C-alpha cells in the first residue's frame, strides 16, 4: 500500500508541466544521440550536465535519466537501418536487425525492438519500485568497509568487461583514482597534486574529463575515416509485428528483461553486457541457432529488451547505495552532487518526491519513447542523412560551451581539450576510458571509506574480511582478477568485452 501511495506521489511530481517538458527533452535527445553514430549517451549527458543547474533537481535528473534510456531506444534504429550501432548497447542488434531490414522486414524489426524495449523498461521500473526501498533499508547498515569493498568490486567488474587487456584497464582505473584525488584532502585539507595552481585546489571537474575523453576524443577518432552509411531506402511499413513475430519474440523478450535487469544491478555491468548475454542465451536456447545472423527476430527482441531492462536496473545501486555501477550512472551522480544531493540509503526517506518522481517520470518517458520511435520513425531516418562534416564541428563548439558554462572557468576548457587529446591517443593504443572515468568518480569515495575503516578498526585489515558483505565483494573481485589467467575464462571474457563501459 505504501508503495502505491509513493508511486501516486511520484506521478504527482513527474506530471508537473515543467517535469514533463524536461522528460520529453531528455528522451528526445536520448533518441537523437542513440540514432546518430559517433555520439553516445555519455557525451550527450556530459554536454547537458551544466543545463541541469538551471532547474530543480527533479527536472535536471529526469532529463538526464531520459537521455540514458532514450538512447537505448534510438540506438536500435541505426543498427537496424544502417548497420552501424548508434551506441554500444545496440552492437548486437546489428547482426540480425540489419539482416531483417535487408530482407524487407525493417518494420517488424523496429517494431519488436520498440515494444520489447517498452515491456522491459516497464518491468525494470516496477522492479525498481519494489527492490530499491528494501535494499535502501538494508544499506543503512553498511559501514565504510562494505562501501569500500563494493566500490572495489564495481571497478574490477568494469575492468573485467572492458575490451582489451585487463592490465591496461586496471592501469586506467588506477589513473582515474589518482586524478580523482587531485585537490584538497577531504580529511587533512592538504593540497595534493595541485602543482601550485589555484584552479586545481578543488580538483579536476567531472564534466571536462568526460567531455574530453568521450566527446572530443570521439570526434577525433571519427575524423580518421570517412563515415559511409548504407541506409535502407525502402519505405518502412508494418511496424506492428505479426502474430508469428510475437510468438517467436515473447520468450526472448521475457528472458532478456529478467537477465538484463539483474545484470544492470551488478556493479560494473550495464546495458552493453546485458545485450550480449541475452543474444548468447537466445542462440543457445534456440532449436534453430543457424538462423541467428541471418535475420532471426529473436536476435533483436532479446538484446533490445535486455539493454532497456539493464538501463532501469542500473539505477538501483546508485539510488540505494550511492554507488554508480557504470559511467552513465557516474554522470547522474554528478548531477545529484551539483544540486547538493547525495544518493544513498537515505535518499528515499529524506527526498521521497525526488526518488518517486524520477521513477514515475521514467515510466512516462517510456510511453513517450514508444510514440517517438514508432509513428515518428521517418523523422529519425531522415536524420541519419545529416552530414558529419557539419555535425562534428558543432559538437566541438557545444562541448567547449558546455564545459565553460559548467564552471565559468576557461581552465576547464583547457582541461577538456587536454583530455580529448589524451583520450584519442589512449584509444589508439588500446586503453579504454570507461574504467578511468568510473574510478575518477569512485576514487575519492573509496579513499575516504578506506581511511575511515582503517581508523575505526585501528589499522586492522581483517575488518574487510570479517564483515560478510565486504568479504563476499572482495572474494568476487579477487576471482575476477584471477579469471583472465585461466585460458578458458580468458576466451569467455573476450567474448563479452565491451568497447565502452556504459
Amino acid at each position, binding site marked *: 500500500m505504501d508503495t502505491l501511495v509513493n508511486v501516486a506521489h511520484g506521478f504527482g511530481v513527474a506530471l508537473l508541466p515543467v517535469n514533463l517538458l524536461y522528460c520529453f527533452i531528455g528522451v528526445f535527445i536520448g533518441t537523437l544521440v542513440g540514432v546518430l553514430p559517433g555520439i553516445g549517451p555519455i557525451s550527450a549527458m556530459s554536454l547537458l550536465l551544466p543545463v541541469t543547474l538551471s532547474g530543480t533537481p527533479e527536472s535536471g535528473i529526469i532529463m538526464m535519466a531520459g537521455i540514458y534510456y532514450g538512447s537505448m531506444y534510438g540506438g536500435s534504429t541505426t543498427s537496424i537501418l544502417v548497420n552501424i550501432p548508434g551506441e554500444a548497447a545496440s552492437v548486437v542488434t546489428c547482426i540480425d536487425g540489419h539482416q531483417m531490414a535487408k530482407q524487407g522486414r525493417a518494420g517488424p524489426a523496429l517494431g519488436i525492438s520498440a515494444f520489447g524495449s517498452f515491456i522491459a523498461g516497464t518491468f525494470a521500473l516496477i522492479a525498481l519500485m519494489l527492490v530499491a526501498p528494501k535494499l535502501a533499508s538494508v544499506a543503512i547498515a553498511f559501514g565504510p568497509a562494505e562501501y569500500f569493498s563494493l566500490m572495489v568490486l564495481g571497478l574490477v567488474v568494469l575492468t573485467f568487461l572492458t575490451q582489451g587487456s585487463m592490465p591496461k584497464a586496471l592501469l586506467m582505473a*588506477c589513473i582515474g583514482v589518482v586524478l580523482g584525488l587531485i585537490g584538497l584532502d577531504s580529511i587533512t585539507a592538504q593540497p595534493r597534486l595541485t602543482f601550485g595552481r589555484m584552479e586545481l585546489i578543488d580538483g579536476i571537474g567531472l564534466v571536462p574529463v568526460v567531455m574530453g575523453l568521450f566527446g572530443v576524443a570521439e570526434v577525433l577518432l571519427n575524423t580518421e575515416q570517412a563515415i559511409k552509411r548504407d541506409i535502407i531506402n525502402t519505405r518502412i511499413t508494418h511496424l506492428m509485428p505479426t502474430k508469428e513475430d510475437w510468438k517467436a519474440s515473447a520468450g526472448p523478450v521475457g528472458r532478456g528483461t529478467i537477465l538484463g535487469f539483474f545484470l544492470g544491478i551488478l556493479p560494473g555491468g550495464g546495458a552493453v553486457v546485458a545485450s550480449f548475454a541475452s543474444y548468447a542465451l537466445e542462440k543457445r536456447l534456440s532449436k534453430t541457432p543457424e538462423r541467428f545472423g541471418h535475420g532471426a527476430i529473436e536476435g533483436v527482441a532479446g538484446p533490445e529488451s535486455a539493454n532497456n531492462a539493464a538501463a532501469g536496473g542500473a539505477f538501483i545501486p546508485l539510488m540505494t547505495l550511492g554507488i554508480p555501477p557504470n559511467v552513465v550512472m557516474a554522470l547522474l551522480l554528478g548531477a545529484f552532487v551539483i544540486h547538493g544531493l547525495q544518493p544513498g540509503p537515505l535518499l528515499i526517506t529524506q527526498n521521497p518526491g525526488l526518488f518517486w518522481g524520477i521513477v514515475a517520470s521514467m515510466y512516462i518517458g517510456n510511453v513517450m519513447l514508444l510514440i517517438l520511435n514508432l509513428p515518428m520513425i521517418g523523422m529519425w531516418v531522415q536524420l541519419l542523412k545529416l552530414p558529419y562534416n557539419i555535425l562534428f564541428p558543432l559538437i*566541438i563548439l557545444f562541448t567547449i560551451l558546455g564545459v565553460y558554462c559548467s564552471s565559468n572557468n576557461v581552465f576547464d576548457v583547457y582541461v577538456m581539450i587536454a583530455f580529448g587529446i589524451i583520450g584519442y591517443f589512449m584509444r589508439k593504443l*588500446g586503453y579504454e576510458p570507461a574504467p578511468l572515468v568510473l574510478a575518477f568518480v569512485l576514487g575519492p569515495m573509496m579513499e575516504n571509506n578506506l581511511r575511515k575503516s582503517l*581508523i575505526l578498526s585501528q*589499522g586492522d585489515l581483517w575488518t574487510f574480511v570479517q564483515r560478510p558483505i565486504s568479504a563476499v565483494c572482495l572474494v568476487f573481485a579477487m576471482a575476477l582478477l584471477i579469471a583472465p589467467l585461466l585460458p578458458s575464462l580468458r576466451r569467455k571474457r573476450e567474448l563479452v568485452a565491451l568497447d565502452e563501459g556504459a
Partner: protein
Amino acid sequence: MTDQTNVKLRLNNSELWGGLIGLGLGGFVIWSGMKLKLGTINDPGSGYVLFYTGILMCVFAGSIIVAAITEGGPTLASRWENVRWSKPLLLIACLAAFSVVLEPLGFLLSSIPLMLLLLRLIDPVRWTLAIPIAVLVPSGMWWVLKRVLLIQLPSGLFGIG
C-alpha cells in the same frame, strides 16, 4: 599480424611505450604519495592511497611491458595505418591554437575562426555554407548565453563578446 606490425624487442612496439608511460606515471605517483606523508595504518595520511595506487600502477604497467616484450605488439605506425591520420592531427592543432587564443581574443573572435577551420578541414564544406555556419552558430550561442542565460563568456583584450 605481419612481422612488420607485430614486433617484440623493438623500440617501435606501441605496447612497450604504453607500458613505459604507465610505469613513469606510477613512479611519479609513488613519489608524490611519499612527499605528502604516508601516515600509519592506524591513521593513514594524505599520501597513503596515492602511494599504494602508484605501486599498483607500476605492477600493471610492468605486466604490460612484460607482455609487450614476450608476446610482441603492433608498431606505433601500424596504429595509424589505412586511416586519415592528418585529420585528427589538424583538429588537435586547431584545438591547441584555440586554447592559446581563447583568453586574449575572447570567445567570439576565437570560436568563429575555429568553426571555419573545422568546417573546411575535416571534410571540406563549401565556402558558401561554411562561412554562414561559422559566423551564425557561435554568434547565436553567444547571444543566447549572454542575453538569455546571463552567462559571461570570455571577452578578451578587445572586450568583444
